[in-house]
């Protein structure tokens, strides 16, 4: 399993792997907001955490369609399906590798991009922590969409559309946890714990459903 993790991480940083595409997209989304909204620093600071979360969500959705498609195209998926290793576990490891190469860079970039939005240190930390807790859920949900559309030649946008409704709760609780951390009356812990619960829930359901979809789609 460790071999699969290393292989997928390696593939994503080799030429054409697309590990940095997500970060570049994240940068593009966040960087244009101040130009559109105007130089109202208080307004930017108020909407900053939400913009960072929306940017990270969209960036995390970006590379999901490639999660299984390349393995299917070159026949690797057939071999993976035949092993005594349960497909559930294979999908889980692939998700973790995908998150490490695409989700983790977003979290590392988020404090830097926070500077664009004029948010203070506490908010930057809160955004980074909630992204750390929440982005794995997006990958696990996305794995189901990627598995369902694996046989479609251009399923990229379809994956995002399939996955987006399920990812909305992650966004809601992620942003409300950040608000809780920086504004006094709102609580931080309850939304943050719900966010963790969503991630844990989908870390079980996502690989399970994706494995079933992959098995059904092999022909």
């Amino acid at each position: 399993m460790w071999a699969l993790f290393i292989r997928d991480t390696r593939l994503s940083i080799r030429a054409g792997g697309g590990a940095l595409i997500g970060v570049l997209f994240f940068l593009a989304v966040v960087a244009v907001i101040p130009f559109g909204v105007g130089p109202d620093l208080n307004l930017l600071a108020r909407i900053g955490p939400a913009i960072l979360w929306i940017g990270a969500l969209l960036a995390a959705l970006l590379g999901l369609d490639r999660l299984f498609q390349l393995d299917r195209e070159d026949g690797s998926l057939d071999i993976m399906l035949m092993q005594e290793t349960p497909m559930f576990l294979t999908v889980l490891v692939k998700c973790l590798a995908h998150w490490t190469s695409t989700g983790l860079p977003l979290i590392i970039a988020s404090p830097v991009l926070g500077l664009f939005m004029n948010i203070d240190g506490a908010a930057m930390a809160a955004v980074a922590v909630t992204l750390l807790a929440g982005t794995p859920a997006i990958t696990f949900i996305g794995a189901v969409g990627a598995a369902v559309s694996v046989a479609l030649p251009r399923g990229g946008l379809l994956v995002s559309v399939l996955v987006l409704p399920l990812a909305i709760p992650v966004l809601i609780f992620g942003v409300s946890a950040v608000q809780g951390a920086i504004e006094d009356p709102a609580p931080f812990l309850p939304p943050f714990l719900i966010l963790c619960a969503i991630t844990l829930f989908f870390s079980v359901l996502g690989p399970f459903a994706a494995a079933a979809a992959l098995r059904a789609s092999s022909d």
Partner: protein
Amino acid sequence: MRLVADNVSVARGGHIFFSGISFSLEAGEALVVSGPNGVGKSTFLRVLAGLLPDAEGSVKLDGAEFETAAEGAHYLGHRNGMKAELTVRENLEFWRNFMSLSDGDGSNRCVEVNEAVAMVGLDGLDHLPYGYLSAGQKRRIAMARLLTAYRPLWILDEPTAALDTQSQEMFSGLVANHLGSGGMVVAATHHALGLINTRHLVLTPDAPAVLSSDDPFAAGAPA
């Protein structure tokens, strides 16, 4: 160890090619599947490999601890299952680790990546990215995968299609070696693999599948 297929039907997209195919294969035996293009040879092999979810019938490996035949099988299909961005060594080492059996069975019957690359005659190319190789070389590296992890059953779909005569002979040697050590082979092929202990499954459109023990590549045999 033996491979038992019972009442297997071959269907794809709702269209049934064949039904009621039953055969058994002892250790050291090979089954050659032949028939015209589009008759369902590849589909039949994918059924054996457990890759078609709605296939009827059962395929089992008797006398082995594998739960399904798929777990005890190597499948070499039309696609090689290798990544162009990784080097030959990285590709093969990944499959060797990923396919190693949990109970350590057969670990003495598989070879190191170095040896496997040498056995397919591509010694010294293991540092190159897989994408740099020619079609025939890619195929030979995919064959090296069969050697780096042990599986008793090899399911081969047109294994020698892109190969020159010399490489075909090399692969025949590997297959003969595998059969000699008690393995089994099911292959769809138009090239004689030089097998001795061979049975033959002839697929003809709109007719029942015929199992015979003739040499499929002897003169006058239906090709």
